[in-house]
């Protein structure tokens, strides 16, 4: 039966080509617009570390004595608190996050000096975030403790400076210090760059050093997030009244999570009673909660998404109206089929098959338009442009949405068509 309905649908679509093209076009444009924005949303609001993110937590407290009644803690913390919490080793794994800009040059390479962002962190950073290594590995806890002059570099930088060769063991000059390369990463592009408090889609830093060494080699060049008083030595923030250090912890089960929450709260309360803090507010957000709190998905992208779906809705209205016209125009034909014994259900099914076929055609057009739309998004100078592509689920979703919406649009016209009174139509013939 389905084959026969398909045949009838094809004939019907061929009968009025202009109308068919217009309907397919309307569906295609609606699908193209909404799937383009939906794909962007899907990518931007995705989980940067699937499988791991549920066990990763970001610790926040409020060291800013000038904000005693703040409802939310600071985005990052002061060095003193960060070292206290890190030194307590209460989590399964933990990593400190500090950023600075530094001049990078490979003495053996002809590439001119580069000004790059340096991530200074601790040994657990690599296993905790599942950072993939191409050559070598991260540094050890000993390296952290001994202020070892070691560095891990990105795949990108390795290609730029060493032509992609195994550069483990070679020397990289950061500022005025020579560091030993111990690891080269595979391409690694978590999106968004979740471990930073700035909440965007930039790439991870190209050079990563132990925090202890980073603070020494780039002393005087550290930038604060905020300060509640002027730092006495700009760029040297270890004992400055400034917030600039992030702390991530890995907690493998719920009991550990609540224990750590308790620990964090107790620490803040203790510091408050010691007079170092004026506020006891703390937060321990999971990775996805943290991204949600930062509001990483740009407002404009959300707005585009709504707009695209409004567009799709209007296209749907259009399809309903045109299908209604199309089906009712065939009242005579439907009357004959009914008189010859076709049930109402059969007419209904036939109309829906026709609507579904329109949806399929619209889906193909919509897919092409989505590809064009995504191409346009990739050409925008945004920091997420390189991430945007149509993955398999979204490809399938394009067709599913196209067919589902057009069948939905077909329900009302089909219902009207199957209630055509056969006798009246036969009389009119």
């Amino acid at each position, binding site marked *: 039966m389905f084959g026969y309905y398909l045949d009838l649908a094809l004939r019907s679509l061929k009968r009025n080509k202009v109308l068919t093209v217009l309907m397919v076009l309307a569906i295609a444009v609606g699908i193209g617009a909404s799937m383009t924005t939906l794909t962007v949303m899907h990518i931007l609001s995705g989980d940067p570390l699937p499988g791991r993110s549920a066990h990763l937590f970001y610790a926040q407290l409020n060291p800013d004595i000038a904000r005693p009644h703040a409802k939310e803690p600071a985005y990052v913390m002061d060095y003193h608190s960060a070292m206290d919490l890190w030194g307590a080793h209460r989590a399964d794994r933990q990593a400190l996050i500090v950023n600075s800009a530094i001049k990078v040059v490979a003495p053996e390479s002809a590439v001119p*000096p580069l000004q790059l962002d340096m991530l200074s962190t601790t040994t657990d950073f690599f296993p905790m975030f599942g950072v993939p290594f191409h050559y070598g590995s991260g540094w050890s806890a000993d390296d952290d403790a001994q202020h070892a002059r070691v560095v891990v570099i990105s795949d990108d930088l390795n290609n730029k400076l060493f032509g992609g060769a195994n550069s483990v063991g070679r020397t990289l000059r950061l500022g005025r210090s020579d560091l030993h390369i111990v690891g080269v990463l595979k391409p690694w592009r978590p999106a968004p760059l979740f471990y930073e408090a700035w909440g965007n889609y930039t790439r991870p830093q190209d050079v990563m050093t132990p925090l202890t060494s980073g603070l020494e080699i780039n002393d005087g060049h550290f930038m604060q997030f905020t300060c509640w008083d002027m730092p006495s030595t700009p760029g040297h923030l270890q004992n400055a009244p400034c917030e600039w250090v992030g702390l991530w912890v890995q907690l493998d089960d719920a009991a550990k999570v609540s224990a750590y929450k308790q620990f964090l709260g107790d620490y803040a309360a203790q510091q408050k009673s010691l007079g170092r803090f004026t506020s006891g507010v703390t937060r321990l957000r999971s990775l996805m909660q943290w991204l949600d709190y930062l509001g990483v998905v740009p407002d404009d992208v959300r707005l585009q998404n709504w707009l695209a779906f409004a567009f799709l809705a209007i296209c749907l209205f259009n399809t309903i109206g045109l299908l209604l016209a199309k089906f009712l125009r065939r009242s005579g034909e439907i009357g004959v089929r009914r008189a010859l014994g076709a049930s109402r259900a059969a007419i209904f099914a036939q109309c829906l098959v026709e609507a579904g076929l329109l949806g399929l055609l619209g889906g193909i057009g919509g897919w092409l338009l989505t590809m064009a739309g995504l191409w346009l998004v990739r050409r925008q*100078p945004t920091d997420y442009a390189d991430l945007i592509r149509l993955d398999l689920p979204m490809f399938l979703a394009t067709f599913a949405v196209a067919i589902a919406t057009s069948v939905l649009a077909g329900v009302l016209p089909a219902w009207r068509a199957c209630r055509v009174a056969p006798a009246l139509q036969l009389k009119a013939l």
Partner: protein
Amino acid sequence: MQIRPILSTLRHHKLTAILLTLQVAFTCAIVCNVAFMVAKRVQRISVPTGIAENELSAISSSGIEKGENMQARQTADLAALRAIPGVRSAVAVSYSLPLNQSESSSGICPSKQALDRAMQLNSIDGSGCVQPASYDGTPGLIATLGLQLVAGRDFLPDEYVGKGKPAVAIITRALAQKMYPGRPALGQSMYDGDHFIRVVGIVDTLLRPALRKPGVDGDSLIWPQRPDGSGVTYVLRSAPQDRQRVLKAAEAALLQASPNRIIAPGQMQTYTQIRRAYFQRDTTMIGLLIASALGLLFVTALGIAGLANFWVQQRTRSIGIRRAIGATRGDILHYFQTENFLIVTAGVVLGVVLAVVLNLLLMTHYELPRLPLWYLPIGALALWALGQLSVLSPALRAAAVPPVVATRSV
């Protein structure tokens, strides 16, 4: 034109008429709001910065190691830059320029009492204290940027400091009015918690490096402070058409003066490029919004024309009969035009209500201001025009139906 027969026909096509009305209503609601969003964005990207935008370019240098004498380095660099043919003036700033995103700001109060009030309230709001953006730079900044001094004077040479806090500042007119409403700001002493800072000059407009919201975007303050970090941005003023050449020459001159430094390719820009980069997202959004509004209107026009076509076909016979018993072509044409007008009117009435509802929704989720009411009649007019345009061709076809059709079976 009699409306009664049209209404009774529409009663027979309730469903289709309702669908069309709804489509017109939604289109009206969305298009009104989209037009408003476009207007808001256009307003945002055309905000004046107060500086001589089309004569300025900026080049950033970094990576000079500590230990070198920064002040001497800068003086030598500036001399080299000023020697480039076409450069009218050059200054060094730490990093901030209007709309280049690198903002440094700190709280400041009109008086010590205001600070105490802020401490008591535990909030800066309502105390009179503000958080202006701070600009610094070498002598000649005001003239090089092309700022309009409306009161007071430029800094004196001995007021400039390298490290530490200067004792004077120049503020914008917006900041002056906010901090000292109703009295002259010139000569007042602002308080930042440690020092008193005297206002020696007021400039007309100087936008922040990163916009926040319209009420505070003009709150800026200039310190007589020379940049002292290892990174510095040189601002050059030249004729608009010379800017690219001047930038190239400046890069060469800086690298010659100190080959040790880094000038990143993205850090050599004319001010026009800086401004364009800042508003890049907004320009994309404006394009997208306009495209989607036009797309919506097009799809709606398509729907109206499609249905009108269908009705004309369906009623060919009755049109023939009407023509045979004396209706003129004009009567038939007007019939369809009036029918369309009635449907679109119903849609527009509903659409105006929906537009306001949609605006309220957007206000809660996207901080969009209230839709000015005059957008609504304009939206309504646009849809009426659109309806009449799209019904014209089917209506003309209907008017062309010959009376003889009445005698044939269809």
